């Protein structure tokens, strides 16, 4: 029951949501990128979250009775994966990246989906800021006990 455990949990979530926002911004920025380093169009990237567990030493200390009780670690970004869905084919023979039939492969980024995900990430961020503020007020309240 550490004093700042809850703050660490909420701030880990803030960091994770920020990474998610960064990746969404990257997707939107590259929505029309038909040529990347490997010659292929840009592939949409997705952030995968994972519950952050305690470290080995935390669990060991608990088992030998050093630590009082179990604590939580919050959340962390497990991986940033590529969306394997197919590219969008658009007929545009004038485009330099068009194939023999005149079709261009555009990235598999859907702007609307990205915008919705971005709003969701920003709302999650706000929820965690609220949690952080509540923890802060609880800590301040403990200082006032006995006043």
């Amino acid at each position: 029951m550490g004093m700042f455990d809850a703050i660490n949990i909420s701030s880990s979530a803030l960091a994770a949501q920020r990474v998610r926002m960064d990746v969404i911004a990257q997707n939107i920025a590259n929505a029309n990128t038909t040529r990347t380093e490997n010659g292929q169009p840009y592939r949409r990237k997705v952030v995968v979250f994972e519950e952050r567990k305690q470290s080995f030493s935390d669990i060991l200390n608990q088992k030998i009775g050093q630590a009082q009780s179990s604590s939580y670690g919050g959340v962390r970004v497990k991986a940033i994966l590529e969306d394997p869905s197919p590219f969008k084919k658009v007929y545009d023979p004038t485009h330099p990246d068009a194939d023999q039939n005149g079709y261009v492969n555009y990235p598999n980024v859907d702007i609307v989906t990205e915008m919705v995900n971005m709003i969701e990430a920003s709302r999650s961020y706000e929820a965690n800021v609220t949690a952080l503020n509540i923890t802060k007020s609880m800590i301040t309240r403990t200082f006032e006990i006995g006043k």
Partner: protein
Amino acid sequence: MINMFDKIDLYKKALDWAWKRNEIISNNIANADTPGYKAKDLNFEAFLQKSLNQEENLELVTTDERHIKESSSSQDNSIEVLDSSLQMRLDQNTVDIEQEMGKLLQNSLYFDGVSLQLSREINKWKTVIKEGR
């Protein structure tokens, strides 16, 4: 004779519970977008029962200093309850963000209330010690 710290101890336990619960709810909110995460909560009765039992010396007896002591964490698991009333989403996550925010606010108000009570209790003893002056 009344133990002057009985009430203070009780308030302390209630604060401990709310403190721990705040951590658990914060963790639920942090993991609102984690696939497969299950929302957790803290059982008040079990927590209080365990806190009260600790004083009754029911600890595992060890005959040697080097023996592994009974871990308090093994009992903690029975106190944390999985909230099964919630609906599971497609990604097998059971966190309901509205409910968690409500619980968080409720818990914080509860904490404020108990800490105020505790302050009043302490001030009462201060008055007694100062002989009402």
